[in-house]
């Protein structure tokens, strides 16, 4: 995994930074999308992360530190964006109304929706991020825990819970 690595004393070159961000752009978007479930919002998050980077630049020694930072900030920003959206929705109107509105909006997506989508949709922001990092990105619990700022045990716990719900979903499908 590129997330954890030995730091070097070498300062990053500007051109290298561009290359690293270009390399990671897709993965950052993937994580943000996994959490947010919304393409436009995911694009926004990744843009915010990338453009706030130059300010941080003198602090990074080596590619690993930079990549870790990108992942961490993208994940947390996505979680926060999701929470912000959820709280906006709560404040805006009754849940049912918003939900109906949102679903109508995503009508072409709706055709392709299945239970896995519903499951992802039902997860808490942190759980979605956990899935994004552990399942989609294949990170270890320790790595995901580091990025999310929680104990590895918490990640293990979340994953167990998510798997349990997946199993319940599969059972439902069979029944």
């Amino acid at each position, binding site marked *: 995994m590129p997330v954890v690595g030995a730091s070097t004393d070498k300062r990053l070159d500007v051109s290298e930074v561009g290359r690293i961000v270009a390399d990671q752009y897709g993965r950052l978007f993937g994580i943000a999308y996994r959490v947010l479930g919304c*393409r436009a919002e995911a694009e926004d998050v990744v843009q915010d992360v990338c453009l*706030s980077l*130059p300010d941080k630049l003198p602090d990074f020694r080596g590619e690993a*530190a930079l990549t870790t930072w990108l992942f961490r900030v993208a994940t947390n920003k996505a*979680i926060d964006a999701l929470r912000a959206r959820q709280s906006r929705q709560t404040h805006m109107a009754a849940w049912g109304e918003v939900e109906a509105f949102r679903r109508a909006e995503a009508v072409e997506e709706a055709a392709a929706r299945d239970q896995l989508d519903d499951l992802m949709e039902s997860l808490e922001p942190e759980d979605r991020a956990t899935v994004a990092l552990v399942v989609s990105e294949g990170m270890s619990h320790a790595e995901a825990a580091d990025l999310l700022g*929680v104990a590895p045990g918490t990640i293990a716990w979340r994953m167990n819970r998510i798997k349990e719900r997946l199993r319940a979903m599969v059972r439902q499908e069979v029944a």
Partner: protein
Amino acid sequence: MEPMDMDDLRAALAARTPAPCADRRAAVLTQLEKNLEDRQGSVAGGRLTSRTSEQPRAIWQKLEAEMSKWKKRGIFLGTSGLVTAGLAVVVVLSGDHSTPPSAQYLDGLQMERIDLAERHQMAPVDARNKAAVKPVPLVVAPQGQIEAFAAAMTRMAQDTMRIAPALPTPGPDLVHGGMSGDRFEDVVQNSVKIAAEEPVSTFSIDVDTASYSTIRSYLERGQIPPEDAVRIEEMVNYFSYDYPAPEPGGIPFATHVASYETPWNAQTRLVQIGLQGALPEIEERPPLDLVFLVDTSGSMQAPDKLGLLKQSLKLMLPRLRPEDRVAVVTYAGASGVALELTNASDTAVISAALDGLSARGSTAGAAGLKAAYGLLERVTDDGRIGRVILATDGDFNVGMSSADEMKDFIADKRDTGAYLSVLGFGHGNYNDALMQALAQNGNGHAAYIDSLTEARKALGDQLTGALFPIAGDVKVQVEFNPSVVGEYRLIGYETRSLAREDFNNDKVDAGDLGAGHSVTALYEVTPVGSPALLNDPLRYGSAPVSTGDAGEIGYVKLRWKAPGEAKSEITSTPIPFAADGPSGEHRFAAAIAGFGQILKGGTYLGDWGIAQAIDLASGHDGVDEWGYRAEAVRLMGLYQDLKSIE
């Protein structure tokens, strides 16, 4: 657990992820390159122009942080109220690890939460691994940048202070207590006193630890805690030290005084005064009947709520005695008894009942509370101690006509010998004020639990008898020997200082000491004639100094009341001028006090900084069974990184 095919899931998720928009990607990368080039031409520490527009959000976020600090002060005040009511030592764990409600305002500022190295994130829970947790400085920022950052922090703090008076004031529930009313009052650090002019220093013990949790929550969010949030004595007292217990049958606490060379100044000495409360044998306590009243409303459906709660309660089981009993009552929609009082030895039955809990429905708190007390009512006669432990995220629906009525109900039950403690979980709708009020009325404590470690701390205290106060209104008075000590300075305890004459006035309230708890206070003293003295001698001389015993730095007097007594007793002990170096335990206490002073600006520390504090803290040789000390070292490392990054 049957293995899930993660690869299938990964593939399924990948199939559901669209590709990022290529145009957008190109635009972002181009802009990034441009910003990078601009950046190269700018001075170190300069601001990104794009961040300037986000300034109002940054201030808003800062405000929110300030407000949450207020809330914590609220808890803290409530706690003092508890202590004055003659109750137990209260552990308030308001550590707020995950993202605060302000998270939606995440902006450029919060982006600075970068902690470069994963090594700070997870401290091994084993003191033997301390080599592994000792951070190595990774990033060295140019001095100018550090200064720019410090200046920015100061500015921001000033902004906040200016805006602060417009904030809503906390409700009357939170304002009582013997502390200063203005929550935004700057607490001025204790200054250096001249022993010849002011030889006597008096303060109340402080058994709270909330400040440490607050600081931890700031650092873990990637923010430097505001200086006013730092109460050094609460940081030092968060940890337990290896003070020998008192002799049985005598004074309920042991006094340990020591002096050793100050880590940050070889010319001065630290005087450490430690009080260790007696811990009654656990066998001596009456059997407990614990009713876990578990909130299973929909909002509890989160890993850091119901999940953590189940784990926490299970952790508690092995620490119970076989004759203790446990029951579980849930409340959500209709409340119900999930488990009748069951002997603690039936761990399998209890575990199964806990596992069976799942979150659903809305909250019917009052009905649950009545059901929980109902279980205790049948048994309170035979010398058992009944306690309801309410575990909730604060979404407590008042079925009784008002919150006051519920408090009265709890207070009535307390008078019949059934107590209430509150464990708070999760974020977002945790209702500090109500929970604190309920616990106060129930003779219990309110603890905020955000991790298993905190659960262990809070629940462990509960069960080892720390809920029994052993000494009330404990006051400390130190008289320094002016023939030995030129200057002295009390580190921390600013909010606990007492007038000299209050020491002998039993009407003046002070902190209580709970069973098994320890309290530590540190003075930095400068010997007479030392080059480290900060005050010059007076040209016209000062009053002649009476010569005391040159072997004594000073004399410690302690006043306390036996629980329930109105009249205080006194004990005293000299502070020997020993040439010993610090023990490992001393080193750790000094490191925490040093860290606290760094957080407060480090006025008296000279060149001694966070790297030295980390070294010192890592070098302790004490027992760190649960990793609290390792965590402290990790927090210091976080702070070091945050500072160096800016």
